[in-house]
């Protein structure tokens, strides 16, 4: 088992910079999600680590050793591909056995290891089937068993759950996490599903246009995004733009918003504030402002979306539409068109340098 260090890695295809000076330290035994929109360079980064492609600049080390001159087959990585890439001519058991058999392990050892790996992914009885006789979720598990049976140092997964439906996806997330804990392998998981990244990983790296936007534990990125992009890409956020005052920002209409988390921005500079929709309290226009929630705005409900356990209100205010999520506690529901007061605490407000 080993950590992976990516240091100042760049990779261009023609004039297009698919990776631009990316540095990430993947800790030994951690579960790491790489998140980013389509074309942001997630697969490209994974391919550099796997050794299918080589960086133009920068350094990649696995277990503290530079892998610059190490070919794929010597890197001791396990990879799960988005399309599973199972060998169609081999049975499930032979697929899983492949990595051990090219190493020339004795047949008895191989059979035992293969059975153990198949049991781990709960496919112990299906070793004799061909890949085309399996369901999507089963194929995905075979691909996982095949990748881990060789005891790789690092497990790389490129959107492994992308092709599965929602329910199966959640099952597989839990299963994958269980297996990862059980064998304690360093795992790098590419996804563009933010929920998946939040629920599964110890740390998240957000990529955009080949650059690493922010990196850290899910809570930290969610609570203290360092850019508007990070704030809106991972979860929902209301963004206010204005001039920094030293303790918050002043909107163009003169309203001030106090923020007690986030970056230090010198007064007068352009800055923005991000507030999560579930941190905002919404009350009818006549209600008294709550002193604990020092930030207050007034507006008008333009739309309400009821989603069972919660409701989302869209509130129009000075040309901007704000989003507020309210738990369904059985309290009075607000009607569309009703004037409302929004209030939230400076602790829930993140200051972001423009």
């Amino acid at each position, binding site marked *: 088992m080993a950590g992976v260090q990516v240091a100042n890695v760049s990779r261009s295809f023609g004039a297009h910079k698919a990776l631009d000076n990316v540095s990430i330290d993947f800790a030994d035994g951690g579960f790491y999600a790489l998140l980013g929109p389509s074309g942001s360079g997630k697969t490209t980064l994974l391919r550099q680590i796997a050794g*299918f492609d080589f960086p133009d600049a920068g350094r990649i080390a696995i277990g503290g050793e530079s892998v610059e001159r190490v070919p*794929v087959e010597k890197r001791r*990585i*396990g*990879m799960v*591909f988005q399309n599973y890439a199972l060998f169609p001519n081999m049975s499930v058991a032979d697929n899983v056995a492949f990595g051990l058999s*090219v190493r020339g392990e004795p047949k008895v050892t191989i059979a035992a290891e293969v059975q153990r790996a198949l049991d781990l992914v709960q496919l112990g009885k299906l070793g004799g089937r061909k890949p085309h006789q399996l369901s999507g979720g089963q194929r995905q598990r075979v691909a996982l068993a095949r990748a881990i049976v060789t005891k790789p140092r690092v497990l790389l997964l490129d959107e492994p759950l992308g092709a599965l439906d929602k329910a199966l996806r959640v099952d597989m997330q839990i299963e994958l996490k269980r297996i990862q804990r059980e064998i304690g392998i360093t795992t790098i998981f590419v996804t563009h599903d933010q929920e998946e990244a939040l629920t599964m990983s110890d740390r998240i790296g957000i990529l955009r246009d080949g650059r690493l936007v922010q990196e850290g534990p899910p809570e930290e990125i969610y609570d203290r995004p360092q850019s508007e992009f990070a704030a809106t890409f991972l979860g929902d956020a209301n963004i206010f733009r204005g001039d920094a005052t030293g303790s918050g920002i002043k909107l163009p209409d003169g309203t001030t918003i106090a923020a007690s988390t986030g970056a230090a921005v010198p007064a007068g500079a352009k800055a923005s504030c991000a507030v999560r929709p579930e941190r905002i309290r919404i009350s009818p226009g006549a209600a008294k402002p709550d002193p604990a929630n020092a930030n207050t705005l007034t507006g008008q409900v333009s739309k309400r979306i009821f989603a069972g356990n919660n409701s989302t209100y869209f509130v129009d205010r000075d040309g901007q539409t704000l989003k507020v999520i309210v738990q369904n506690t059985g309290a009075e529901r607000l009607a569309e068109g009703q004037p409302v007061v929004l209030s939230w605490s400076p602790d829930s407000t993140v200051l972001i340098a423009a």
Partner: protein
Amino acid sequence: MADQLAIGSRRGLKPALPLLLPAYLWLTVAIFLPLSAMVFFSLMTDLPVAGKEWSFTLGNYAAFFSQSLYSTLLLSSLRLGLEVTLWCVVIGYPAAYVLAKVLKGRSREAIFLLVILPFWSNGLVRIFSWAMVLREGGILDTALNAVLPFKINIDLMYSYPAVIIGLVHSYVPYMVLTCYLTLQAIDDSLIEAGRSLGASRRQVLWRVIIPLSMPGLIAGAALIFVPVVGSFMEPRILGGRTGTFYGTVIEDQFVSVFNWPLGAALSFILLAVVLIILALAAPVLRRAA
């Protein structure tokens, strides 16, 4: 695949009849009729032309077994077929691999065209141009002597290698095409998966790529082996005196000796031998594919 076909035929035979009819008609007219005429010929003592007397006989078939010349020639023709097929694999498979997996875009199109070119040139022209290349004082001889510091004599004309060269050139496009089609269908991620599991390039080739391209190799081999065993043009023109094979003997019966009954009988024996070989090979090939 097989069960899909079965379902298709069970459900769809009736509506498909009008579609199938022309094909069956064509097969009957183009293959079955001439073939039965040839069966008829092969059982005659002589051609029924100019009022000659004729009767039914098995003598033409017996001739094959009574004279060892024919079976010797058939064996050397089978060997020729095997060798040409092997050379086509050795040359055609790597070419197909490069076309399918290495080249991209325009360069792929250009090379593809070069591979197909022998298909589009007239067979006789192709063979005679090889004669120009291979003979003493020909293009190959002159070119090599111009480059090499010492004098060598290249005269491949009228030899077994010349026949092989000519046949391989004519038939290698089949191998390239069939292998190209199967290789192209192999997802690159399978190759990457193999490598990520610790297999070297060579191991991936032997354990993943070649098994998956077996259908193409087999189809190519069948397309090449069968006609090469019966070939007569290349052996005759490029082989000269050494170019007597089973195919040239059959041709002689039809073209110069006018012993059509014997020629027809010899062809049917060839057909039977080829079918037996394919039938014997089928289980092995099916497992490989």
